[in-house]
């Protein structure tokens, strides 16, 4: 059982998102960094689908109302329990009344705090994820606030044996890699000529500070496109829309279910977490890959969340 003392900004309950409701206009949502959420659950032996707290700003402070085992994964926030610094990407034991505090992050944007057994929040449309814009899911459909108390699932085991577990180096290496973000071109190939595609691959983009849970906005080049809009179609996470101003937007967890901007390319699933963790001003470049390599890269992610 955890009590939120200070919530910070945009702190929400998330899981791996809602599947199958996009046809009703319901966003998939879920963790901005699904790999880190899976890692936080893996550290505790939880289900991959269990709910965790997504922390997107420093200043998040919680108190354990009883002894518990929690895990931390994702952005490299400076985290203390009492006065003692604790490493990210590990599981730790907290005594009753101990206070855990997030200070500024050295790298990344989103971190996850999970508790052994998962948090007890109701599933709405098959998911624990907070649909913030639409006001449902997670903790009462809203961001967490000071005073909120989060219960463990009734089935939760205390799991003391998980305390001290760490993620392998492969996890941090994944994020610190400066490899380009891999994409598959399409679907709107006929809206972009070869020069536009080459320009897209050649450009070193920067992430904009107005990026949010709906999309990562990039600037650095104007990608030329035909002027007409496409008829709105269903869109998936990672799709790179090019609006009339030519500045690409990569759709992220809370993207709208349909869109009318042409999509030049789509980020492969394996590279979405790395892109989602980029902060304002960080560089992003893209590289074209193949379907086969993209699927192999996805399968290789399992290695990143191996617990030692």
């Amino acid at each position: 059982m955890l009590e939120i003392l200070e919530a910070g900004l945009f702190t929400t309950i998330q899981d791996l998102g809602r599947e199958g409701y996009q046809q009703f206009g319901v966003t998939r949502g879920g963790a901005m960094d699904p790999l880190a959420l899976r890692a936080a659950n893996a550290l505790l032996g939880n289900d991959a689908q269990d709910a965790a707290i997504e922390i997107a700003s420093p200043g998040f402070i919680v108190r354990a109302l009883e002894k518990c085992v929690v895990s931390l994964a994702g952005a490299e926030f400076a985290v203390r329990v009492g006065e003692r610094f604790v490493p990210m990407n590990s599981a730790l034991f907290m005594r009753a009344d101990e206070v855990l505090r997030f200070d500024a992050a050295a790298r990344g944007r989103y971190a996850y705090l999970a508790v052994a057994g998962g948090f007890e929040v109701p599933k709405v449309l098959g998911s624990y994820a907070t649909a913030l814009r639409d006001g449902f899911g997670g903790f009462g459909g809203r961001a967490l606030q000071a005073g909120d108390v989060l219960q463990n699932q009734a089935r939760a085991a205390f799991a003391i044996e998980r305390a001290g577990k760490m993620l392998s180096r492969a996890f941090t290496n994944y994020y610190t890699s400066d490899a380009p973000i891999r994409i598959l071109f399409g679907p709107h190939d006929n809206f972009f000529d070869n020069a536009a595609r080459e320009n897209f691959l050649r450009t070193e983009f920067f992430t904009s500070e107005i990026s949010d849970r709906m999309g990562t906005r990039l600037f650095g080049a104007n990608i030329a496109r035909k002027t007409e809009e496409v008829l709105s179609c269903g869109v998936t996470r990672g799709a790179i829309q090019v609006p009339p101003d030519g500045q690409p937007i990569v759709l992220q967890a809370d993207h709208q279910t349909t869109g009318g901007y042409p999509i030049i390319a789509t980020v492969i699933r394996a590279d979405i977490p790395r892109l989602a963790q980029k902060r304002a001003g960080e560089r992003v470049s893209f590289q074209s890959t193949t379907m086969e390599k993209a699927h192999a890269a996805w399968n290789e992610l399992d290695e990143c969340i191996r617990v030692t």
Partner: protein
Amino acid sequence: MNDLNIRVMGDAAVLVEVGETLDVSLNARVHALARELDQVRGVVSIVPGYTTLLLEYDPALCEYDALLQQILRAAESRAASSIQDTRLIEIPVRYGGEFGPDLEFVAQHNGISVEQVIAIHTRDIYQVFMLGFAPGFPYMGIVNEKIAAPRLETPRQRVPAGSVGIAGRQTGIYPRESPGGWRVIGRTDVKLFDAQSEPPTLLRAGDRVKFVNVGNS
């Protein structure tokens, strides 16, 4: 079904295009194809658009090449090219006044009376092309050109829940209060989205809708 294009949208989704123009019968094919593909193993989400279907799939359960074969097979089946019976849902609307601040504009823009706008809007039956923008928001048409109207140049910050609007030759309903640029001609009390219901929306893509004038008092 001829002229089917299957386009890649990343490593776990494909966009199936049945055409490139907004057309009621093309859109009906989208929904027929969606029904055929609903049971394909590994497909986790199907999102209809005007002339497209987005299929999100799990490559661990259904390989890309196998998925393409299944889509082509489904498209060739008789059911996918036949228009099936769809539900007809009536939506009661209070037109004009505080409920429809743009009703006068739509009338003036088209050189007809507000009564004629209401008569035309309630006479035709509309197809739900797709849901999008917000949970439960139906994009419907095709609206008679006599009551077509351009979007607002500057969208409103707050459009009340239930507002019925026109944009170009489409009509839609705002399920909840939100910003919006459609010309609002009336309002309904009907609830279009409820996260606690299954399915969560009153309307589904492919449904037919008829508006009913219930006065504005």
